[in-house]
């Protein structure tokens, strides 16, 4: 087979990467500062926000490509800070700033590249969604739940549960809240409910068998339970109680000198500590 190493040039410096690696991965290893908004290590490249554009030259022609997605090829020449890159990135940031003038993340990123105001239309000063799609993608690609998606197209495109009604399949895990870069996706635990506010969906929280407090969403626990082998029971216990249970078990075993059994079921000997 061919050599697995791919040699490229980034801003005049020689660099190496593996077959299939993206320009962004190589550049980040080199310590290059390339901004991203829709990129996440856990997800497939999406190439939508366009702030990570870099210039590549091949066969006498150069074009701007999304570094988060573009796979490196032997001999590729990459410019991360050319005039074309700077100009287009600036325009993209101005457009994003006009879309989400209230978003701190957008404002900070724009300011970092010298964009503090925008000449473009501000439709909705309260808009915080930059259409990066991270929430939709994490729900589908990682959680395999696909409770939310995109509705409409063009400027009307938005994220939400089907028909913008309460989701029947959302498990309330909150991954969408965690990945959202701008704080557009929100949730709050409210007594017996986890309110996924952005999706207009309320999920019941389970009650800890030990202390009686509300903790994880019932649907998420059900889903985990369904995924576990039958001989591994998942008890409805909150993290705090589980910690104290494990601590109690540990101290019991430590005094008896036996192997330490972690909650995960993995076995380690006490002596290795």
């Amino acid at each position, binding site marked *: 087979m061919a050599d697995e190493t791919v040699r490229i040039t980034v801003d005049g410096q020689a660099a190496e990467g593996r077959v299939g690696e993206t320009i962004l991965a190589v550049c980040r290893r080199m310590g290059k500062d390339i901004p991203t908004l829709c990129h996440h290590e856990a997800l497939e490249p999406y*190439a*939508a926000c*366009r702030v990570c554009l870099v210039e590549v030259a091949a066969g006498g022609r150069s074009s701007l490509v999304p570094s988060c997605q573009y796979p490196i090829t032997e001999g590729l020449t990459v410019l991360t800070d050319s005039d074309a890159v700077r100009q287009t990135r600036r*325009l993209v940031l101005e457009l994003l700033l006009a*879309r989400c003038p209230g978003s701190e993340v957008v404002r900070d990123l724009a300011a970092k590249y010298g964009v503090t105001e925008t000449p473009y239309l501000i439709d909705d000063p309260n808009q915080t969604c930059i259409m990066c799609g991270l929430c939709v993608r994490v729900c589908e690609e990682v959680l395999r739940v696909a409770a939310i998606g995109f509705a409409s*197209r*063009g400027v*009307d*495109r938005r994220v939400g549960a089907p028909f913008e009604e309460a989701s029947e399949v959302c498990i309330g895990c909150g991954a969408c809240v965690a990945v959202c870069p701008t704080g557009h996706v929100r949730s709050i635990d409210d007594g017996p409910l986890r309110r996924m506010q952005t999706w207009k969906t309320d999920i019941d929280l389970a009650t800890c068998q030990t202390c009686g407090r509300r903790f994880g969403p019932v649907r998420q626990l059900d889903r985990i339970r369904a995924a576990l082998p039958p001989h591994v029971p998942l008890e409805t216990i909150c993290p705090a109680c589980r910690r104290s249970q494990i601590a109690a078990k540990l101290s019991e075993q430590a005094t008896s000198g036996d192997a330490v059994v972690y909650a995960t079921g993995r076995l380690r000997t006490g002596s290795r500590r």
Partner: protein
Amino acid sequence: MIAPGVKLLDSVARLEARRDELVSARAGRPCVIVSASTCGTANGAEELIRALQDGLKQLGLADRVDLRVTGCLGFCEQEPLLIFRPSNMFYPRPAPGQARRLLEESLLGGKVVEEMCYRDPRTGQSVWRIDRLPFYGRQQRLVLGANMEVDPCSIDDYLAIGGYGALAMVLAGATPERVIQQVEASGLRGRGGGGFPTGRKWRICRSKAGGKKYIICNADEGDPGAYMDRSILEGNPHSVLEGMLIGAYAIGADEGYVYVRAEYPLAVRNIHLAIDQATERGLLGDGIFGSKLNLRVHVSRGAGAFVCGEETALIASVEGRLGTPSPRPPYPAERGLWGKPTVINNVETWANVPLIIARGAEWFAGIGTENSKGTKVFSLVGKINNTGLVEVPMGTRLREIVFDIGGGMPEGRHFKAVQTGGPSGGVIPESLLDLPIDFDALTEVGAMMGSGGMIVMDDRTCIVDVARYFMNFLREESCGKCTPCREGIKNMLAVLTRICEGKGGVEDITRLERLARGVKAGSLCGLGTTAPNPVLSTLRYFKDEYMAHVVDKRCPAGVCTALISLSIDEGKCKACGRCLKVCPTAAITGGEKKVPAKILPDKCIHCRACFETCPFDAVTIT
């Protein structure tokens, strides 16, 4: 399942026998042809067909004369056409009540009914033979020509003109490699917009290691005013299937999709019918002509998104996902439908393939220009006399298409520009009328071949308004995935609207240019990277008109309502009162009882209704 009476065409010999049988059964039989695709039907073809059927029955000709209902013949301005064979006598848009008379006098009596003949609007001469019609005279209808010869619902009609003969040639003795070589040598480039060499695309796909591969026919024709693919699919669907069969053999695919707009119900019906008929006869399915070629073709209907014509969005849509584009590479030929190597070609491209195989790559390469071979179908619409589908060799001059074939502008208006390539294309001004039209020439002048839409504009078209129209279309059709396209188009539209409303400044033109360049450079897919073309090309050729809007606050074409004022030339006004009736705001006084009309500027909302109505050109716009 084989229907009773259907002959399985499981070998080349059987195909040829069937063709001979059909040809001899039809030889010498008179034929009445009516074109009844979407345009013909809209103009009452069904009634005409019924009248012809009745007439043939009454005249006792029903068994001796064939009545063939065909797809679009391209002369949309005059559809449905009624044609008699063998005389080639034709009548444009005849009234159903005249059907019997025409059958008697022209079909039986061989006489031309002069008053119902077509009259050339430019010379006033009547033309009675379809093959002498100037509209067709300068065309080379390689792809569309067969529409006159086949009823799209009849596979027999296609077989009778040698249909599936190219497939037979391929399966009888050409290796897949040889087929690809021929398509490469022909110089065929994709007719859907990009103009990528078809043979090279096939080779890339073929070179991917074995396993499952797909072919797709892209019939998601979405450009405003463009309908050539619809007409091919409606009028000659088997030619597309034959092309796909040859392509499947060449690249090693065994499954295919036709992705067609649901807004094309007749095309959807006809391709379904064609697939059923071909499957019944063993031309689709397993072991075609006793060879190792297997192919199943499915129809996938698009749900009305323009962006699904972009190949990666199309694939997503076929897979049942949201129709949004993905970045390329990887290209579909490497990783396409369900992750498998996939060749996507558009309708017209597929329809060219059997011609290349049957008549040879050299023949095909002999037509056209150095880097654009063969013919191209254009849909000629807008301010033009002969609205219709025009097929000409690549390299034909724009002037020839617009004036010689298209018959020039109606009402003797002056030519201003032509928009090619739909919303992704650009305008071509009068100074470039002698441009030989091919892929590269169009790109060079800032326009684009696109799928072949050609919208003709006269001097009453405002170029800023045209750019605004296309941005409005794209604002609704952008998928909204990437920032520059979604936000940039919205802002270009806002600037253009401002200019049309008379609120624009010179700085808006700079802003527009900057936005256009950024959207072009930064967008994810072909929709976004070409979306600024209408803006950039109008700025390139018609900057004066933009400046008139922003500096002089004037719309030279008299279109932008905020920038015009209307007045009535008393000398021309005949006080007929028509303008009084159409004015929605009662802004006209006089205009009757021999008093010339007068427009009250305070009340006039510049709607132009009086201007459009006045038969004496007495209303002037400044």
